[in-house]
């Protein structure tokens, strides 16, 4: 075991940093958008990700047959962490959730249509699992798909679809067999978001970001756009969720915010006393710094486990998501506390401590322990799959 990057990995990281320096642009990179910085929601961000694709960096772990490099996941990890550290768009659901699911389960037609576009970053996806009555209990989704000729007719509602207002395609789960047990009656579809019958309504959030309700009214989808087998959708969703838990919650933004707090404590005073001499502040910062190191090496362990081409380890993904998001919140709490009364000033306000990062982070991180499987759901997963405790529902 060692904890050093290999010369090839160091060289890759330096190549990425040079590339990011050359493509530096405040409209593409903005750490104050917190976790939402990762989505590719503007033309400039799309253009940037196309350049990432030109480098061959979107298909690092994909098979060569489909334009990938069949390389180690560690390079994808290094790239994503570098992008996240600068608040840039990241390799996300196209390459990960959708691409990898199509590679594993999709038809030849879906592979030919979508995989090349994903690698060139010519398509953006929105993911639709959540519904008003299917949150933590995602398998109880009710959006109905009924047989209609050579395809399906979709009716119902999705919610919390963050990318629906700018994406072209909707990766959506629908109930195809209402009589089967709830996990076995769901099918995954790919639906163009400009299809007649789809209505997208914005929902604005405490983090100043937009997410959406999406309504389906007699929306027709051809059999060609069924992903994998009918009624196997929830299995595919579960596999991809393990991946999502890891890729959605990168470590470097937490580290970056920790550096902001540490710098503030090292240089600022409160009541004319250096913050660095306050034992309570030192204790808090020491605990957070230790937790950051824990999250970093836990992430590396996850990378190591999933590197050999195997499926990402489920409980490790849950552990990482649970700890990293709770840590992110604790860091935000500490930044607000230590920043004092000025920490309520909005981000980018001149007088705000830590340039207002405390305020934006505090508002934003509250969603991280809810989205992508709430902390309590992660604990259920850990207790059942790793400890072997009985089901409770």
């Amino acid at each position: 075991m060692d904890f050093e990057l290999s010369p090839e990995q160091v060289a890759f990281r330096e190549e990425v940093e040079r590339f990011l320096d050359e493509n530096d642009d405040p409209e593409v990179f903005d750490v104050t958008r917190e976790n939402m910085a990762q989505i590719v929601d503007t033309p400039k961000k799309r253009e940037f990700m196309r350049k990432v694709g030109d480098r061959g960096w979107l298909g690092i772990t994909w098979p060569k047959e489909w334009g990938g490099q069949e390389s180690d996941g560690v390079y994808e990890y290094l790239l994503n962490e570098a992008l996240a550290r600068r608040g840039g768009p990241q390799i996300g659901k196209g390459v990960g959730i959708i691409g990898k699911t199509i590679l594993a389960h999709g038809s030849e037609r879906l592979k030919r249509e979508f995989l090349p576009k994903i690698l060139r970053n010519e398509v953006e996806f929105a993911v639709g699992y959540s519904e008003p009555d299917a949150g933590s209990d995602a398998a109880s989704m009710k959006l109905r798909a009924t047989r209609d000729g050579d395809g399906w007719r979709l009716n119902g509602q999705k919610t919390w679809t963050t990318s629906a207002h700018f994406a072209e395609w909707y990766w959506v789960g629908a109930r195809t067999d209402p009589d089967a047990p709830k996990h076995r009656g769901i099918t995954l579809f790919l639906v163009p978001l400009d299809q007649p019958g789809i209505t997208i309504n914005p929902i604005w959030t405490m983090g100043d970001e937009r997410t959406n309700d999406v309504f389906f009214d007699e929306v027709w989808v051809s059999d060609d756009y069924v992903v994998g087998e009918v009624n196997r959708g929830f299995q595919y969703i579960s596999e991809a969720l393990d991946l999502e838990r890891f890729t959605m919650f990168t470590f470097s933004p937490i580290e970056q915010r920790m550096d902001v707090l540490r710098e503030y404590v090292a240089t600022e005073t409160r009541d004319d006393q250096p913050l660095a001499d306050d034992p309570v502040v030192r204790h808090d910062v020491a605990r957070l710094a230790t937790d950051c190191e824990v999250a970093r090496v836990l992430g590396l362990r996850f990378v190591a486990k999933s590197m050999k081409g195997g499926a990402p380890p489920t409980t490790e993904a849950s552990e990482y998501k649970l700890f990293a998001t709770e840590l992110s919140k604790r860091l935000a709490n500490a930044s607000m506390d230590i920043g004092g009364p000025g920490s309520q000033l909005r981000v980018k306000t001149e007088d705000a401590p830590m340039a207002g990062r405390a305020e934006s982070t505090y508002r934003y991180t509250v969603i991280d322990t809810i989205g992508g499987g709430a902390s309590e759901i992660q604990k259920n997963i850990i207790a059942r799959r790793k400890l072997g405790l009985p089901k409770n529902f």
Partner: protein
Amino acid sequence: MRFAFTEDQLLFRTTVREFLEKECTPADVRAAWASASGWSTERWAKLATLGVTGLTVPEDHGGLGMDELVLVLVLEESGRAALPEPIVATTAVGAPLLRDVGSEDLRERWLGAVSAGRAVLGVGLASLPYVDHAASADLLLLQRGDELHAVPRDEVTLVAQPALDGARRLATVEWEPGAATRLATGERAVWAAEYAFDRGALATAAQLLGVSQQLITMAVEHARHRVQFGQPIGAFQAVKHMLADALLQLELARPVVYRAAYSVARAVPERPLDVSMAKAFASDAATLACRVALQTHGAIGYTWEHDLHLWMKRGWALAAAWGDAAWHRARVGAAVVPAS
């Protein structure tokens, strides 16, 4: 970059685990606690045959010449079994200290004996108020100011300090430094003492991983079989979330301890910081595992007859030994936010 152990390292761990499952059962631990010394010379001799006692001793002194990356795996197993023997003081701290600063004569005399399981070392650094297994130690490695001494036990006065762990017997040591026992002085002695302290903190952190693992395993077994309100109590989210929290803290502590082992083995400059992060986190994880395990067991876990207390007491003892969580967090604080 390789964040996984090698096959050989894992195989050695398996060998030790299988040995301890046979030779260090809860009944054996109880027997050791009830004995005069608190531990078993027979089991220590068998551990020597496996190479465990001399794991850190150079090969030319009959040891395995291995580093902390293997050692932490073995120590984890020793924690899992609540091993009563003095592996931390002798193998993890004492032998490397003698190896690094001992005279040729001392190395010749003691390192071979450690490898053969014939000698036990005690370590009394200035920062440690109590010396564990001191009454059993043949040679005590003691610090006073900027001097390190190697003193035979019959040249010191021990004052027993009865403590909660029945195997990890503690004592304070009264002694006078003299020219004949001097190991190292000045910067070299301070360097060696600081390194020794970090080795001890790392070793107890690794043992705490095993202790926590065993506590959680026992609690999960209980939660799966204890029926109340018509179902196993492990089905209740109030119970399973408590256990998941305990497991999470353990799983988080593990890679940080491995990271610290790497830093100690390779003498990286951040070694004290990495060790303190590991010990602070492992101490907290073990303290939580103790509480959760007892809460899951309910009243039966409070009894002397149940084995739970053997691990809880070891957990409490080690969490406080070689710097408790607060001490190590203070050291982390000093490193990440230097005082003005």
